[in-house]
């Protein structure tokens, strides 16, 4: 069973979407490690190391996702899990910015998949299946 770490990053306490993601991915047959809200980059990475996870799915709903996610790929590399898949989604930036630019910025930060606001987790699930080969 493949393991996925999920959680809400930074000073963000939006718990509802987090529970939906947990439910959906668990039902799809993944071992979900949900570290919950108010999680730091280190919390995600530590959980991924111990659980030998193949994917970290970061949620951010409060607009500060860009600041919270900076340097995460570098920390993964330092921690010996540089090849792990990094996904991010939610309301990851402040205001109504052009999403293609936002996506570009997050891809440059080392994220593999970047999702705009308001999409369903089922969309991400297809990507997960492709990326993890199931």
């Amino acid at each position, binding site marked *: *069973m493949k*393991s996925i770490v999920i959680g809400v990053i930074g*000073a*963000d*306490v*939006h718990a509802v979407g987090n529970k939906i993601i947990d439910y959906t991915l668990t039902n799809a047959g993944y*071992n979900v*490690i949900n*570290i*919950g*809200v*108010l*999680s730091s980059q*280190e*919390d995600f990475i*530590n*959980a991924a*190391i*111990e*659980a*030998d*996870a193949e994917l970290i799915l970061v949620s951010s709903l*409060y*607009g500060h996702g860009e600041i919270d996610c900076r340097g995460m790929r570098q920390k993964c590399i330092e921690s010996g899990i540089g090849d792990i898949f990094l996904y991010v989604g939610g309301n990851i930036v402040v205001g109504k910015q052009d999403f293609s630019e936002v996506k570009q910025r997050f891809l440059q930060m080392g994220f593999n998949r970047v999702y705009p606001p308001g999409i369903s987790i089922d969309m991400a699930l297809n990507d997960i299946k492709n990326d993890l080969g199931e």
Partner: protein
Amino acid sequence: MAKYLLIDFGSTFTKLTAVDSELGDIFASANHFTTVDTDITIGYKNALDQLSKTIGHPVVFDRVIACSSAAGGLKMAAIGLVEELTVEAAKRVCLGAGAKVDLVFSHHLNSSEVELIKTKKIDIVLLAGGSDGGNSECVLFNAKMLSEANLGIPIVYGGNKSVQDEIKAIFDNHHVNGHIVDNVMPKINQLNIKQAREKIRELFLKNIIEAKGIKKIESEIDKVVLPTPEAVLRACELLAKGYMHEPGLGEVVVVDVGGATTDLYSISEPSKRGDVILTGLEEPYAKRTVEGDLGMRYSATGILKALTKEEIMMINLEKGIDIEKEINDRNTNVSMLPKNRSEELIDRLLAEMCVYKAMNRHAGKMEEIYTPMGMVHHQTGKDLTDIEVVIGTGGVIIKSTDPKQILAKTTNVFRNDFELRPRHPKFYIDSTYSLYAMGLLSEFDPVLALKIMKKHLTQV
């Protein structure tokens, strides 16, 4: 109607406590220097003679059982993968089993770390790493490193359950005294202490006390049953919970300031509030922490290290002493006992600093985070604010003329509101130094042990 003799083979003293079940109380106690270096029975027999003298005649006891922290106690190495997760879980298991955690390692072991296990004369290694189904490469590597080093000591494996068979094969191939227990962290942030703790206790009784020359005493007494700190932890738990119709005191904190370490025990739910967000590794209900750098004699220099230059100057100015000199004196002359009022006051000051700092590390922290959804309380560690009973034990507290001053340092005296220290507790002392003995007695007569403890706690 029975008479019990309860013994603690401590690092310095062998202490005897005699209990009469009909009387429902302790009827005599005695102590003598521990003689584990030559023959542990000598010190015991001397103490027993003294006990007979106090009573006036020799007594035949129905049961004689002991706990031990002699010959360095139970020295363990805790090994895990990530520091905040399996390393911390392994550490907590060792402490909960009454061990001293002399070495802590994370990630892949190197040869100098393995060498340290030999030079530090570790008694048992606890190897953890990986949640169930999680990382296994690291524990396999570490199991090989440890096995190839030919340590000659028991290794307990409490890591990822998926590779238990492979680990067992590694142990068997290298003829290691290896033992497999449940994962100490089966899921991320979930702590699982029980089976590992039982195994450590079993090994302590089967191998360690034998190797240290303590088992010899079993020709004189019935049995050594626990490491001393675990006996104290059991006493604390009984005192908090109560037993059957005999009520306990509710949640408690116990402080033990010794020559080499400062131990804190808290028996309480980690959090009772519904409006906080808890993070980090799960906290145990019965938690023990040991500060190896905070103590009255052997570790007195650790107190100095924890102070800044300004603080040292302020203490010297305020108290009119040279704190550095006083601490170094105590560190070089570890058997020093205060001879006058001023030496006693300095000892008290040192004890206060040990207690303050130890509680700073034991108690949880609360952060207030301002989020777009308003202010949120974010808790790590245990919330001790509601604790109503703080008990002091150990020579410096029990013998102090003002133990309350020392114990008050468990509370928030410097108003760091983010530290979740007991807010308005009542203070007690274990005046007859009987917590360890009641931990032993609770093995077969918990109600009697509880009654005696309640009788001998003195409010200060």
